[in-house]
């Protein structure tokens, strides 16, 4: 425990916007959105933009306002909003995002390892024999498949890369908001946009690249009748923007009092979607240009997030002239996106620790150590990683439900007047905000039900022997068990957290 430090703030609105962009633009923008958008085309993009307005922006706006108003981390701020009776909801939201931070830190390690691999390949391509690139491209060698299989399972390389990236994150965050997070985001976010634009410009010009754009943008009106696209669109918007994670509460807690909550939220949210669309305009033309046929390109998109980015794209890039350079740029962007997202996740934990009077340097070290230790199983075993991604990914929807519930209880119109509108030159109507908060609550309940009803596991609740199927990575039993543990912790520590983080 240390003495009280001077409260930190972002320098200006751009510090907040870059932080919210860094938070939102992550691996999902580069490996999930292009995949889904390529599958459903322009129909999906229109619905995804619709749900940005309907789901993500109201929730992000509310979170930013809560953080700015109470100037505390998630535990203190949501506890103040909910009172002692509902303080456990804030604890649950915090635990879910911590769960994500622990496994997501592994993604930053992988992205860093791929960036190194692509740097080695580029150097060999320019100054050496280019044999490495030939190995990447040869379908008979299957180098990328083997590389990914060894990196994602029982790999000390993965663990070392992951520890290295966490150490860098500790160093950045230990410097504080202005000198750490704000300075790094000023470099990362503009560079990320530029890299994506360069890759997109190259990919579109490749023969066959335009076909990728054709798939991406064609609006099929008939598809609007398919409920799956609506659900994919709302879920992708929730996951991609980080709405309901409590990260905007953390960013808001460092906001100056005079900041415009509404405008900053709209700018950050549209910026996130622009980055995702830019990524899709880079990846889809590249996939379509380099695949032998359109059918093969679509099969690649169905391969899943990690398969697309870590095995298919490097192989495809290797087959084209100048591909190693493009691949290097792409993995540079990917590493930046992943790193810029882990920073606010770790900052969420650090902010709560500093609210408990731990010094920011010590808080950064404790957070980093927790990420390394608790995230280790996910770094070691891909099944554990996928399980954590599934459990806490769906858990985010529950976090969104809890935050909207707390606002409904407070009164959405009153909340908007007191929390959001103060210092906002740009305002939205109270009816819109209130309507969307109620919508988020009920739509969130439906979404949790829908995702759990998808039947990704053959035995969602009990295995063939009738035992509780907690071991299955995609079962409902594993979701309910891990959420149950988080809820028990939240309820058991409700009073203590309220006393230490809220009342103080």
């Amino acid at each position, binding site marked *: 425990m240390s003495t009280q430090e001077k409260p930190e703030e972002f320098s200006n609105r751009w510090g907040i916007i870059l932080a919210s962009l860094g938070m939102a633009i992550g691996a999902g923008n580069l490996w999930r959105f292009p995949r889904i958008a390529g599958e459903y085309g*322009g129909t999906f993009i229109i619905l995804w933009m619709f749900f940005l307005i309907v789901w993500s922006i109201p929730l992000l706006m509310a979170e930013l306002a809560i953080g700015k108003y109470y100037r505390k981390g998630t535990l203190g701020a949501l506890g103040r909003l909910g009172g002692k009776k509902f303080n456990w909801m804030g604890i649950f939201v915090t635990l879910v995002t911590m769960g994500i931070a622990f496994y997501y830190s592994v993604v930053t390690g992988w992205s860093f390892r791929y960036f190194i691999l692509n740097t080695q390949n580029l150097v060999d391509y320019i100054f050496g024999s280019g044999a490495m690139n030939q190995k990447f491209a040869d379908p008979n060698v299957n180098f990328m498949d083997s590389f990914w299989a060894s990196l994602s399972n029982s790999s000390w390389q993965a663990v070392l890369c992951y520890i290295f990236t966490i150490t860098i994150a500790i160093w950045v965050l230990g410097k504080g908001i202005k000198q750490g997070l704000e300075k790094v985001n000023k470099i990362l976010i503009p560079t990320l946009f530029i890299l994506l634009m360069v890759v997109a410009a190259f990919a579109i010009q490749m023969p066959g690249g*335009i076909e990728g754009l054709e798939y991406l*943008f064609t609006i099929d009106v008939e598809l609007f009748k398919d409920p799956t696209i609506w659900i994919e669109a709302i879920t992708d918007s929730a996951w991609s923007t980080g709405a309901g994670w409590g990260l905007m509460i953390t960013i808001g807690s460092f906001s100056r009092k005079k900041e415009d909550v509404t405008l900053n939220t709209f700018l950050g949210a549209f910026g996130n979607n622009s980055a995702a669309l830019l990524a899709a305009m880079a990846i889809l033309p590249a996939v379509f240009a380099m695949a032998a046929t359109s059918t093969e390109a679509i099969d690649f998109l169905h391969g899943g997030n990690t398969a697309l980015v870590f095995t298919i794209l490097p192989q495809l890039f290797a087959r084209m002239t100048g591909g190693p350079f493009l691949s290097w740029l792409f993995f540079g962007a990917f590493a930046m996106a992943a790193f810029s997202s882990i920073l606010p996740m770790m900052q969420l934990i650090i902010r709560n620790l500093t609210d408990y009077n731990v010094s920011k340097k010590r808080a950064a070290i404790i957070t980093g150590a927790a990420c390394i230790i608790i995230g280790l199983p996910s770094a070691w075993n891909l099944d554990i990683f996928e399980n954590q991604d599934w459990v806490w990914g769906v858990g985010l929807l529950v976090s969104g439900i809890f935050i909207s519930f707390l606002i409904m209880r407070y009164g959405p119109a009153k909340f908007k007047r007191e929390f959001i509108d103060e210092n906002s030159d*740009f305002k939205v109507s109270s009816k819109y905000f209130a309507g969307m908060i109620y919508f988020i609550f009920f739509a969130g309940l439906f979404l949790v039900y829908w995702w759990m009803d998808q039947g990704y596991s053959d035995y969602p609740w009990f295995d063939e022997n009738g035992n509780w199927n907690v071991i299955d990575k995609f079962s409902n039993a594993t979701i309910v068990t891990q959420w149950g543990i988080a809820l028990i912790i939240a309820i058991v520590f409700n009073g203590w957290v309220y006393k230490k983080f809220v009342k103080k």
Partner: protein
Amino acid sequence: MSQAAVIGMIICLTITFGGFFTFLMIALKSDKDKSDAGTEVKD
């Protein structure tokens, strides 16, 4: 590219990038207005 894809592209890009640049312009204008009015307070 087919006509349907071109129309789709115009719609999607206008909504996404158009929205982003619109809010970016509003934010820049708001900062400039505050700066001109001398209300920018150094922290």
